[in-house]
């Protein structure tokens, strides 16, 4: 465990990747990632809730479905008031952060070239009892976000927001410093991207912990204690330490 001078604690990684933690930034001392614009891909339950949360946090928000902007214009107006409906390409063009919240079975339909160089949150989950088996994930020992990252090969993929219910995202948000504030885990091979995302999560209303590289995202995939629960930062830290998922 690493405790910074500002009282921020970060978890230990599994032993095999402990060295990586040496690079954990003191991201939470940063007040601003400079992010102003968030594009949310997917307007289902998760995408809508993320977009509303981002709007409430003061971001400029673009939303995109699978088709033309006018297809989701009324949806955006009523369900995500304040968000600008766009095509995927337009929505991500000058977005600082992209949240991918499409059904995981459609992840290959996300335009990888449009996301090149972008910080991208993978909020998707592989959940066979609900969505059925998907060979890409069934036949791979990698964490799901690693598989996604192979497709979004030039994006700076960050796994988070997958382990909070879409209605909890709006219900559980709390100002920074609130006692018992809910914390979310963040995994990425790109630590700078993870740090930027943690600033965004703070504005969304959540504490966060850097859990390690994308492979460590297994610790909060469906079926895990973290996925199923709701934890303030100290308890999330304990869960991450109790349930290390070794990298491979």
């Amino acid at each position: 465990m690493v405790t910074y001078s500002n009282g921020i604690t970060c978890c230990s990684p599994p032993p095999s990747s402990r060295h990586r933690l040496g690079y954990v930034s003191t991201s939470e001392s940063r007040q601003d990632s400079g992010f102003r614009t968030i594009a949310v891909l997917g307007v289902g339950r998760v995408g809508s809730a993320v977009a509303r949360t981002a709007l409430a946090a003061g971001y400029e928000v673009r939303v995109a479905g699978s088709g033309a902007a006018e297809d989701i214009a009324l949806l955006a107006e009523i369900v995500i008031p304040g968000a600008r409906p766009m095509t995927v390409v337009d929505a991500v063009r000058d977005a600082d952060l992209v949240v991918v919240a499409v059904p995981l079975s459609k992840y290959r339909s996300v335009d990888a070239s449009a996301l090149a160089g972008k910080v991208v949150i993978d909020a998707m989950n592989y959940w066979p009892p609900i969505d059925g088996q998907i060979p890409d994930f069934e036949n791979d020992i990698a964490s799901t976000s690693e598989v996604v990252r192979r497709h979004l090969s030039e994006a700076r993929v960050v796994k988070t927001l997958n382990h909070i219910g879409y209605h909890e995202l709006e219900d559980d948000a709390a100002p920074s410093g609130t006692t018992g504030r809910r914390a979310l885990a963040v995994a990425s091979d790109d630590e700078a991207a993870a740090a930027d995302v943690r600033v965004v999560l703070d504005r969304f209303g959540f504490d966060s912990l850097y859990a390690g590289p994308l492979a460590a995202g297994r610790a909060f995939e469906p079926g895990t204690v973290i996925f199923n629960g709701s934890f303030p930062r100290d308890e999330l830290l304990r869960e991450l330490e109790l349930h290390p998922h070794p990298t491979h």
Partner: protein
Amino acid sequence: MELGAYSFGDTQLNPDGSLRSTAEAVKNLFDAIVHADSTGLDYFAVGEHHTLEMPASSPGAMIAAAAGATKQIRLGSGVSVISTDDPVRIFQQFATADAVSGGRVEITAGRGSSVESYPLFGYNLRDYEQLFEEKLELLMRVNEHEQVTWSGTTRAALKDLTVVPRPVNGSLPLWVGTGGSAPSSVRAGRLGLPISYGILGGAPHRFSALSDLYRRTAQQAGHTGPNIKVSVAALGLVAPTKDEALERFYPGWRNMHTQMGKLRGWPAPDDNAYLAQAHAPGAYYVGDPDDVAQRIVQLHGHMGHVRHFLQMDIGGLPQEHFLESLELLATEVKPRVERLLAIEG
């Protein structure tokens, strides 16, 4: 406001917790529908699930049986998983039951909340979206037309073929069932079909944005009139007192969540979550007649729904509690709801 119930069948438990027979569950469900009819309940929907705990796999067969044994209750599916069935056959089954019942049968088409029916009937989840879209379109067509011409990619084409019997009232009420994704509301609105929201958790009034979206989409698409309407399906149980309702519903709720949790990787049931959901503004309509009536009317203020129906029999709820709840819903909750709606104008 119509009140009703829906069920996936609820296999009873032995004292040691093991499951009793699925045949008994089906007979219990049939008895419950007949009882609901005799107490004056407005609506009963059946299935479809394909599990040992919830064996109401064939809504059409159950509704046909109930059609012949009931006098006034409206009967429907909740939902028919049309993606993995043949819309022509579904329509024929429901139209047959409709004829037997004298025009009391409806269909609610949905994708279902689980995927057991895909391997069971030989469909591929890869085709999830297309199966639903095409089959819904075909179901709409056979519902409206006696002679049907249709082609698509998910089944053989139909060229000017006759589909009978025809419904007593010209066509069957055909609803779209959804768990609350905004694109599903858009779809139903564009098609001009009534929509049924399954509200299984969270704060039900949040669904008002979706019902607004549905209505506005329908309006934009030029669909107006009585077919543009909303119903709400939720968990619930009525008992003489709130405490009795909470106590009666809890064991089954816990069993269901434990069992589904194993399957779906959910956490252990949380008693605090149960209590929170079972009180306003939660999503479980578990209470005495006053409480349940008040909360239904509160939601009506947000969503303007025309029908509210409850899934009561879960996790081995004793049959007598199920029957009493159906009766209380019809005889005690219904008049209260009508009175409250009249007061609120």
